[in-house]
C-alpha cells in the first residue's frame, strides 16, 4: 500500500507531471507564468481545487453513472472553483487582488477534469486526495520554475511581489538579480512561455533518457484538450 502511495506522489510530482509529461493545463501555464510569484500563486490555487475536486468526485464515484460522468464532473469542478473564488474574494481579499484573475481560469484547466476522469473516478478517497495534492504540487513546481526562468531573463528579478501573495514576512524572497536590467521583453511575452517550456521539456527527456536508457518515452495524455 505504501509503495502505491509512493507511486502516486512520484507520478504527480515528476513522472506524470501535469505540465512536463501530460502537457495539460497549457492555457494557465502560458498565461500566468510571467513571474515566479504568479506561477506559484496559480499553482497553489489549482492544487487546492485539484485536491478538493478529486476527493469529492471519488466519494461520489459509485453513484455517478459513466454516461453522465463528464457533465457531472464539470458541474462539480466549476461550482467548486466558483466557491473558492467567492470565498477568497470575501475573506482573503488582498490575496484575491493578486490571484483573482487566475481563479476562474482553473475551470478551464484540463488537468482538473483529467485527474477526475483518469484517477478519482476509479480510486478510493484517500488515494484520490493524495493524487490531487501531488498533481497540484507538481503543477505548482512546473509553473513556478517556468515563471522564474521567464522572470529572470525578462525582468532580471526573482519572485518579485512575493510579499503581496504570501504576506510581508516573505519579502526576503524578492530578489533583483540583475540591477538596471533593461529586460528581454520576449521572455515576458507569450513566445517566451513556449520557448522556456520547450527547452524544459527537452531537458526532461534528456535527463530521462540518460537515467534509464531502455525506458520508453512517457505516454502523452489525451490530445485536443488544454
Amino acid at each position, binding site marked *: 500500500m505504501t509503495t502505491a502511495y509512493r507511486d502516486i506522489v512520484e507520478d504527480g510530482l515528476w513522472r506524470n507531471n501535469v505540465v512536463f509529461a501530460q502537457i495539460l493545463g497549457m492555457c494557465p501555464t502560458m498565461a500566468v507564468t510571467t513571474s515566479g510569484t504568479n506561477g506559484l500563486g496559480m499553482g497553489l490555487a489549482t492544487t487546492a481545487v485539484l485536491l478538493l475536486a478529486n476527493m469529492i468526485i471519488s466519494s461520489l464515484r459509485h453513484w455517478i*453513472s459513466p454516461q453522465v460522468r463528464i457533465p457531472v464532473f464539470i458541474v462539480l469542478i466549476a*461550482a467548486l472553483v466558483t466557491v473558492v473564488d467567492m470565498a477568497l474574494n470575501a475573506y482573503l481579499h488582498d490575496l484575491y487582488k493578486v490571484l483573482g484573475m487566475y481563479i476562474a481560469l482553473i475551470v478551464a484547466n484540463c488537468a482538473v477534469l483529467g485527474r477526475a476522469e483518469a484517477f478519482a473516478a476509479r480510486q478510493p478517497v484517500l488515494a484520490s486526495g493524495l493524487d490531487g495534492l501531488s498533481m497540484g504540487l507538481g503543477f505548482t513546481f512546473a509553473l513556478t520554475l517556468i515563471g522564474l526562468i521567464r522572470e529572470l531573463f525578462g525582468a532580471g528579478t526573482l519572485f518579485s511581489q512575493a510579499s503581496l501573495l504570501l504576506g510581508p514576512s516573505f519579502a526576503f524572497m524578492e530578489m533583483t538579480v540583475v540591477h538596471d536590467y533593461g529586460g528581454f*521583453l520576449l521572455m515576458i511575452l507569450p513566445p517566451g512561455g513556449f520557448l522556456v517550456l520547450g527547452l524544459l521539456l527537452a531537458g526532461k527527456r534528456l535527463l530521462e533518457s540518460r537515467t534509464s536508457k531502455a525506458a520508453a518515452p512517457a505516454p502523452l495524455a489525451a490530445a485536443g484538450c488544454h
Partner: protein
Amino acid sequence: MTLEELRSKLGYHSFVLGLVALVTSGALALTDDSTHGAIVAAEARDLQQSLAQVLPDGFADNDLLKDQVAIKGEDGANTLVYRARLHGEAKGAVFKVTGHGYAGVIAILMGVDNAGRILGVRVIKHQETPGLGDKIEAAKARWIYDFDGKSLGDPAPEKWAVKKDGGQFDQFAGATITPRGVVKAVKGGLQFYAAHRTEIFAAPTANVASTAKE
C-alpha cells in the same frame, strides 16, 4: 434493486445529473449569500484606498463614499463623482475616467481640486503589456505623477499629448499607445469636470450608493 441495476436505467442518468446540478446550485447560492456582504465591504475598502491615493493627506475630512453624485456626461453615460469636503466646504472631486490603451480599457481614477488642478491620478485597472505599458502604474514607475498639479490651461490644450504627438508628456520606449490613451483620458476627465463643476457641487448631498449604478 441493486445500485448496479439502477445505474443502467435511463432515468437514473438524468436524475443524477439533475441532482448534482441542484445541489451545486444550492451550494453556490448559499456561498454567494454568505460572502456577499464581506465582498461588498472589501470592495468599498479598496475604493476608499484608491480615493485616498488621489487626494493629498488632510485634503478632505468627509467620507467620500457617502458623498457621491451621478453626473451625466456628454456621451450620455453616468459618471459617479465623489466630492471631497473639508469642514463641510467643497474642496474638489474624485471620479473615474476610461482610456483606451493597447490591450483594451484602462480604468483611471483622478482627483481634481476646485480650481480644476489635478491632485492625483492613478490607474486602477488595465491589461497593458507587462514591462512596456504597465509603467502607467504608480507601483512600477513615477510617470503617473507627471499629471499632479496640471490643469486644462497648464499645459496649453495642444500640449496635452505625448511628446511624439507634439505634447509635453513622456511616452515609454516601445509603448506610445498606452500613455497616449492615459493622457487623452485624463484630459477628457478635466474637460468633463470643467463642464459640470457647478452641477457636481449643486447636487444635494445624499448617500446615493444604493441607487447609483456604475
